[in-house]
Every structure is written in C-alpha cells, then in structure tokens.
C-alpha cells in the first residue's frame, strides 16, 4: 500500500484511526496492540509472504536482545558474542535480500565467473528495519535501553509510518512516547497531522511526480544528451527526488502525529545548504545520525585512541598533520559514505555516489582546517564565502544526483559530459527561429537547431524554475509548523524570522481552508485518466 493511494487514505487510515481511538477510550494497551496489528497488516499488504520473513527475524532479534539484557553486565564476553552475532545475522538477512544479486554481479565482473543471478524480491522497508534492529541491539548492549517487552519491541519495529521511507528511529525516542500517548482523539494532533500529511502528499504528487514523468525520456534516450537537456535531466531529477523525499518525510511525520507520536527530523531544506557538511545534516538526517553514531564515531574513536597509544599525532584542529587527517577523518568519512551509498541501493552507481560524497566531505573538512591559516576572521569569511559555498554545494549535489539516477556509471558519465558541453548544445528549431539575427551567431558558435518540440523545453524550464524557487526561498514545513513541534526537538528559533509573525502555522480557520486546498490538490492528483500511449516497432 502506498501512502499516496485511494486505498490507504480512504480505506486503511480511517479504519485504523477509528479503531485506535475507540480502543484507546477503554484501555491504552489495546490501542497499541491494534496499532501493532495494523502495522503488520500494512506490511503484509505488499506481499503476504513477507510476513513469514519478518516475523522470525523479529523473534530472533528479540531473543538476542533479551540475552544481552541478561548478560550485559554479568558476562561481558558472552554479551559481546551475542551482539556481534546479532549484528551479523541482521546484515546477512539484509544482504541476502538486497545485495545477493549485486554481489553475484560483482563477482562475475571481477573474476569472470558465470554465476547466474538469483532474482530475490526485496521485502518492504528492510533497509530501515534492519538498521533499527541493529541500533536496538547495540543500545541494549551499551545499557542505553534497559527494559522492554515483546509488545513494545514489535510495535517499534513495525510502526507503519516509518516503514516505507524512514526516518530511522531509536527505541529510546519512540517507546517513552508510546507509553505516554493518550491514544485518544486529540484535535491538535490531528490538525498538525493533517497539515503535515497533506503538505507531503501534495509535494509528491503535484511537484515530484509530474517532473519525473517529464524528464524520464531523457534518461532512456539512445542519442547523447546535449547541454540544455543534460542540465534539465540532472536538475530535474535533483528536484524530483528532493520533493519526493521531502513529501514522504512529511507524510511520515503527519501519520505518526495522528497517533500522538513525534518522529525525528529527516529532511530540512538540504538545497539551502552552504557546504557539503551542512547538506548531510539536512538530507536524510536520521541516516546521517545512525551512521555517525554507529560507524563513524566508534571507528574514529577507536582509531584515534590507537594512534595516541602509539604516540602518533592525532587530530589537533589547525595543527592537524596530513596523516592524522587521512587516517582519522578522510578514511572513516569515505568508508561511512561508502556504506551509505551501498545502503541506498545495490549497484555500482550508488556505491560510487556514496564514495563521491565521502570525498567531497573530506575536502570540506580539510578546507575548514586550512582556512584559518590564510583567512583569520571567521565572521567575515562566512559572510563573503557563504554564497560561494552554496553554489559549490548545489552544483556538487546536482552532479552527484546523475549517478543516483542513471542506470549505469557510463550513463552518468555521458550525462556529465553533456552537462559540460561535450555533446554540443541544441535548441528546438521552433524557438531558434524566434532569435532572429542572434540565431546565426549562435549557430556559428556551434549551437544546433533540431526538430524537437519547443514545448518540452518550456515546460521543463517552468517547472524546474518554480520548484527551485520553492526549495530555496520558502520556509519548509518544519519551519512553518515549528510552534507545534512537528518533529522531535523542532522548536521556533530564538530569533524568530520576520515571516513567522504572520505566516507561521496555527490551527486557524485561514490555515484550515488553505490546507483544504492543499489536500484537494493532493487527493485530486491520486489518479488520472490514462493518457494515450504510443508504441513503436
């Protein structure tokens, strides 16, 4: 079941909410059990067989967690073994479903082995679920989580709002909320939930999906993509995935809020970032948090302590040596981003995308260390260079997204070549003829007119232009609703920006009508008459 479907919005949600609130009137426990079962149903809807996979995995992880709880303090060595086997089990579980085909393909490529690729169907949300279970095991082992029941654990793993596209949540930020939730109809929660959910729905259906359909042909065409089209393809995809992810994040927040639960932030206007470091604190925030906490920090800590024990220089701010930088920052960063890329998808393009971002982050960190040597004043530097940083970050992200979208590395390279002008620059003849004398000029420079429709170009420019404006200049939903804590920890800033006085969200009649328009736009975009499709020999 997709969030953006008639069945989910008009069938599933009303039933689940009604049941939750009615049962909650009697006993909170029943409401929570109902919610767990409803989440299991949601999970099963995708493919009933998947329940047979996820149920044993939940049971095994629960058992291991109990063992860790029992032996964590008393028998640390056994606890360690249990932890490592738990992590290994989960990774293998994920690895089988998500990466087996990729692994076989890689072995084939590297060694010329003729492995036949097994086709494995990926269970829903397995990437998120796996990471959450691993985090839970580690938390129990480290003593961050001390008591839990099977009911709690099942609800935590299966809670449906974050099953499809995250965020990755920690047990200790979820369970206290479940235990404290009133489980009754609460008008404020519903008002906030409605606003978040339908903002998200509209973003996905009205912003992201039409753009996706528009630029799709550019990624399958057999002829090389020329400069303007290449930029449309890259920028278009960046905005498409931006609003898709932003929309899903908002929808997840809204859905959880109906039940009185706040999820952590996962998306915070990443295109406004002025550095790559900033970007990753705004894009897929919960993933960055997870990777930092469970891979980057432990790794860096361990490496640093080891270096220190050996007497080698460690990180020292502006006095860092190259070897310290390479081992203690660049290395772990690139490794972490490698994992991030791999997590996003089982393919060379995703891995390369991750590594690319790892390199960019390392460059960013290096720059931050070196900068004080020739530009002492931090304030003036920020004031002058922030716009430059913004442009650099933006361009890097857009180029990187080509890897994310193109089916092969070759395809991405072809697109990059197009973007820098290797494949020439073409303009639809219909527009070209309106340039008058300038047309001859342009043609002399190598700009070619072609028999393609000018309407595609105009629609693309219009859509991309408007969406860029929205992504870069308007406040996002978290900021709009900040007075009502739409996500964990989100509050209005100490210095409230000017627009917040008049335009911040409150449950006012004006916003009610406004959200009705937004919701109508979303609901009306759930389906459409099939458009006539051309086939070709």
């Amino acid at each position, binding site marked *: 079941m997709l969030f953006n479907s008639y069945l989910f919005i008009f069938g599933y949600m009303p039933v689940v909410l009604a049941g939750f609130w009615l049962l909650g009137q009697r006993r909170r426990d029943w409401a929570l059990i109902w919610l767990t079962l409803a989440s299991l149903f949601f999970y099963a809807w995708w493919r009933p067989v998947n329940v047979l996979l996820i149920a044993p995995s939940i049971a095994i992880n629960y058992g291991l967690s109990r063992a860790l709880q029992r032996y964590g303090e008393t028998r640390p060595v056994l606890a360690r073994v249990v932890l490592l086997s738990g992590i290994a089990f989960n990774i293998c579980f994920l690895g089988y479903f998500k990466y087996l085909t990729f692994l076989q393909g890689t072995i084939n490529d590297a060694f010329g082995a003729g492995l036949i690729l097994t086709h494995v169907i990926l269970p829903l949300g397995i990437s998120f679920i796996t990471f959450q279970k691993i985090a839970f095991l580690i938390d129990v082992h480290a003593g961050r989580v001390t008591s839990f029941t099977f009911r709690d654990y099942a609800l935590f793993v299966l809670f449906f709002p974050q099953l499809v596209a995250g965020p990755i949540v920690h047990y200790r930020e979820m369970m206290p909320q479940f235990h404290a939730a009133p489980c009754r109809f609460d008008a404020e929660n519903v008002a906030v939930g409605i606003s978040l959910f339908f903002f998200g729905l509209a973003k996905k259906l009205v912003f992201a999906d039409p753009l996706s359909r528009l630029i799709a042909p550019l990624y399958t065409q057999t002829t090389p993509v020329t400069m303007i089209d290449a930029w449309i393809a890259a920028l278009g995809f960046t905005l498409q995935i931006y609003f898709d992810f932003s929309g899903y994040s908002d929808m997840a927040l809204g859905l959880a809020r109906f039940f009185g639960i706040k999820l952590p932030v996962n998306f915070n206007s990443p295109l406004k970032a002025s550095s790559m470091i900033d970007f990753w604190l705004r894009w897929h925030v919960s993933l960055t948090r997870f990777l930092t906490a469970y891979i980057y920090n432990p790794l860096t800590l361990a490496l640093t302590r080891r270096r220190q024990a050996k007497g080698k220089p460690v990180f020292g701010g502006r006095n860092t040596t190259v070897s310290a930088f390479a081992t203690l920052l660049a290395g772990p960063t690139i490794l972490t981003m490698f994992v991030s890329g791999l997590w996003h998808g089982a393919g060379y393009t995703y891995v390369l995308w991750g590594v690319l971002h790892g390199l960019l982050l390392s460059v960013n960190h290096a720059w931050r260390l070196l900068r004080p040597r020739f530009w002492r004043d931090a304030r003036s530097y920020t004031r002058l260079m922030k716009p430059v940083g913004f442009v650099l970050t933006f361009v890097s992200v857009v180029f990187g997204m080509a890897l994310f979208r193109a089916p092969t590395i070759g395809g991405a390279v072809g697109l990059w070549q197009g973007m820098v002008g290797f494949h020439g620059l073409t303009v639809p003849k219909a527009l070209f003829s309106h340039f008058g004398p300038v047309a001859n000029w342009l043609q002399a420079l190598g700009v070619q007119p072609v028999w393609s429709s000018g309407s595609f170009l105009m629609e693309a420019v219009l859509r991309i232009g408007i969406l860029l404006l929205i992504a870069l200049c308007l406040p996002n939903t978290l900021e709009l609703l900040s007075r009502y804590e739409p996500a964990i920890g989100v509050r209005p800033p100490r210095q409230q920006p000017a627009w917040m006085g008049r335009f911040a969200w409150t449950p006012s009649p004006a916003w009610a009508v406004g959200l009705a328009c937004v919701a109508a736009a979303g609901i009306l975009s759930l389906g459409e008459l099939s458009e*006539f499709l051309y086939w070709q020999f």
Partner: protein
Amino acid sequence: MNRPARFVAIWLVSLLALVLLIGAFNAAIDPYDVFGAPRIAGIDLFKPRAKNHSMLAKTYQIERFHPVTVLLGSSRVHIGIDAHGAAWPAAMQPVYNYAIPGWYGTNTSYRSLQEAVAAGPVKNAVIFLDFQNFFAPEPTAVVADEDQKRLLVQADGSPNPARRLQRLSDAALSLFTMGALLDSAGTILAQHDAVVLDLPVDGSSNEADFINAARADGMYDLFAQKVAFEQDRAEGLATFLANWQGPLPNMDIVSRIISYCRAHGIALTLAIAPSHGDGLELYWRAGLWPRVEQFKTELASVVAKDGGGAVPLWDFSDYSEWTTEPVPASGDRKTPTRWYWEPTHFKKALGALMVRRMFDHDPTPFGVLLTPDNVAARNAAVRAQRQALVCESGRAMLTALPHPRPTGCDGSGISTRESHRGPT
C-alpha cells in the same frame, strides 16, 4: 469547540466542498465529452482537450449518437474526413467518425466496429486501411486494456461484464482529478483562440492543430518535421517485416471484419488511405515497396474471396496529382497546399473527394477499385507514375532530407536540380 477541533471541522467541510465543486465544474465543462454536457459557446463549445483521450471520448460519443454509418481508420481519417457535409448521401447519414488517432491498428478497427454496431442502427461501415498502421500488433498496453473494458461487447460479441466498473472509473477520473481540472480550465481558455481544436459530436476532428502550425511555421517545416519523424518509423516497420514469410500479419482480421459485416447485414466499404509522395518515398528508401505491393495484392485477394464481390476495395494510394502536390518553399508561411497538411495527413478537401468517389459516382480520376484481376496492373501503373515523376523529371521529394538520388530508379537520368534547403 476548541481551536484545533474547529480547524479539523473547517478543514473537512472545506475539502468536501472543494472536491464537489471541482467535480461539478468538470462535469459542466466536460473536457472529454464523456457526459455529453451541453456545449455552450464561449465556455465549452469546442473540446480541444479530448485530443489525447480520443478512444475514451469517442466511445461515449458514439453511444449517444446512434449512427447509420460508421467511419473507421487512423488519425488520417480522424482529421481528414468530415462525417457531416454534402459528400455523404442522405441515405447514409448520420455518419459517425470513429477513427482513432495514433497507432491503434486493424484490430482496433474491428473492435470499434463491434462497439458501433452495438450502439446504433449501423447499416454501413467505411474502413480506411493504411500500410503504416495495418500491422500494429494486438494491443497489450494498460491503456488499450481499459479501452477494451469500456466497450459494450467483448470480442466474441457477448456483453462486456467489465463495462460498469470501467465506466465508473472513467467518470470518477473525469470528475475528480487534477488532470481533468487542468483540462477543463484549458478548455475554457482555448475557446477564444482564433482557431480552436475541436472534437464535434460526430467525431470528426477539425484541422485546427494543422492550421495553427501552418500559420506559425509554414507548410515546408510541417512537411520536413514529419518526414524526419516518419523516417524512423519506416525503418522500424522495415525491420519488423524484413524476414516475414507467408501472408502479411493482420490480414485475418480483415476476413473477420468482412464476415462480421455480412452476419450483421452491414454494407462494408474498404479503402487504402493515400500518403503524400514524401511518405511513399520513405517506403522506397527503407526497401519496403515490395511489401507495399504485397499488401495491396493480398488485400484484394482476401476481400474478393471473403466478400464475394459485395465489398468494394478502393485504392487511393499512388503518385497522382492529388498525392504529389509540390511543397511551398521554406519560410513561406502564406502559400497553402490544396490536398495535404503533411506526408501522412490529407486535408478535408481530399477526404471529401474520396467520399464522393466512393458513394456519389464522382468522375474525378482519383482512386481505383481493386480486384485480384487488376491489382498487378495497378501496382505496375503506380510504379510507372513514380518513374515518370521522380526518376525522369527529377522531382524533389522527401522535403528537407538530403538524398543524393531517389531509390530504385533503374539508373535513369537523375536531375541534379537542388531544391531542398533548411537545416541539414
């Protein structure tokens, strides 16, 4: 009621009101003529947005129209032949133009015929076949699936059980979607254009798109753009037919159509639609001409055998004065053409001429009745026409395409007169 509760209530009521309002708006404007809403001048008299939903629109239209004659074919017929007008004898009227634009093939004509018969007191069927769309395989796309579910009868003639659900879906999606809303708005905005595309109640589209394109770009560009586009299609078709052995695909559908008409007492007339010389030259270039001739031969044979002489088969496809009119020069936006908009689509004037030829004994020597006895001679005659026109007098074809010499001219003298220009 506290503030948030009031918010939820206002939101719910506003949402419902908005959605219902939009539905009512879409029902009134009826951009795809699904509901048969009254056509009011200045608001929704013309239906330009029905263009991409022709199968949908026409199926609902024909069920309200109850035609005596149904006209079938591809976009050539959809745009090129008027269902109203003096060309049609009174006994054949009212005529409904059920031709579907796009690459729906012969099987679609058959299913559409069944729908027409189920809808109205159909006595006559006029089906235009063309070499290009004839070979389209059975529709398997999602769209085509819905198109089939919408019809009154299934392929075997029995009532279609999937109809009610599909029509419910059609109605819902024509009322409560963003697409429909944007199309309704677009419909209203377009009413005041100088020339508006329309799908009238009898199904014959007007030529607005071509009129506007001709004014904006000139006939030369229209021809050149279509030639460039059709070149790929011709090559694709050539590859498809390259190693084909035996009778050409979909000929059996023609047999089925003929039997069906006989069983239902329908007077059937078949015709081969004419391409402009530029379009025919693309077939030569792709090596398809032998297949073109095979197409005519087999068709004549099937029609004669199954039709028993009662089914006329007209061949309008040749290199005559109507199909080889010269294209105005590049940049000339004033000079009109007489018979063609571009290589595939003929103008309504030619469409009317063909209707008069078939049903009104018009003496103009355009088009020939094909039988198994004369088809070989006809093929030879068309070749001779081409030889004279293209090979010997060196008439330039294939607007804007660079080509050193025409294909298949037996080495006769080729004129080097350069008469193509434009971007190379």
